[in-house]
């Protein structure tokens, strides 16, 4: 880092400090390989098809 740049770098750091970035916490968003599809428990209030245990049982019994 060139000596003449120190002031600019400090200015940039100060700017970033005040930019609100620390609102983004933790590294949960970072989990490389985190699985988006989960075993579905029935969700109250959700519209549309839900793969509840009841539905899964139906599919299991309906399989030939």
């Amino acid at each position, binding site marked *: *880092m060139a000596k003449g740049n120190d002031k*600019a*770098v400090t*200015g*940039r*750091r100060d*700017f*970033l*400090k*005040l*930019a*609100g*970035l*620390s*609102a*983004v*916490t*933790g*590294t*949960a*968003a*970072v*989990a*490389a390989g*985190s*699985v*988006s599809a*989960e075993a*579905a428990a029935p*969700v109250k*209030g*959700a*519209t*549309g098809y*839900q793969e509840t245990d009841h539905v899964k049982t139906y599919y299991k019994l309906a399989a030939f």
Partner: protein
Amino acid sequence: MGKAKLELSVSEEDALRANLYRLLAHTLRGAPARSDLEHFSAMDGDATPIGQAVGALSRVAAKAISEEVGREYHDLFIGVGRGELVPFGSYYLTGFLNEKPLARLRSEMSRLGIERRNDVSEPEDHIAAVCEMMAGLIVGDFNEALSLEEQKRFFETHIVSWARHFFTDLEGARSSVFYACIGQLGAAFMDVEEQAFAMV
């Protein structure tokens, strides 16, 4: 892409930048899991544009149902043939996929030692991929962390020309509710990145 090394030589501000790029990459790569939504709903923002966007994201995440966010993601980005939005740099810059912007990015990736994943069929100039690359370049996932001058060059060549437009489109998209917040957050962050890089 590889796991982040211990970020000993990266300043706190730069680690926070990388973290936000990763959040954007994560939510734009695929719909968030329930655990992600819970995490987002616990975040808190101040009055800055980024802070306000985080606050909005937190409120929406608290009420969101992950299956519905999954449908939102599908409508926005997948659809039938295409989604409401086409989140690729080539498309934003030329109107077509697989164009010169992608070629430029591939050259850059080769130069920087960033490899393409084998299990992904889409072109590398997807907004999630470039955000993930930027995060990795900041903290040194691929080789040495890039200097600010080098980060600025990457940002100006591959991100600034189109990402803010994409995030604004995402904010206003018909299908977006949760993703409107991601759009708001991404746009605010792009402004901050641009202003910060102007100081480099």
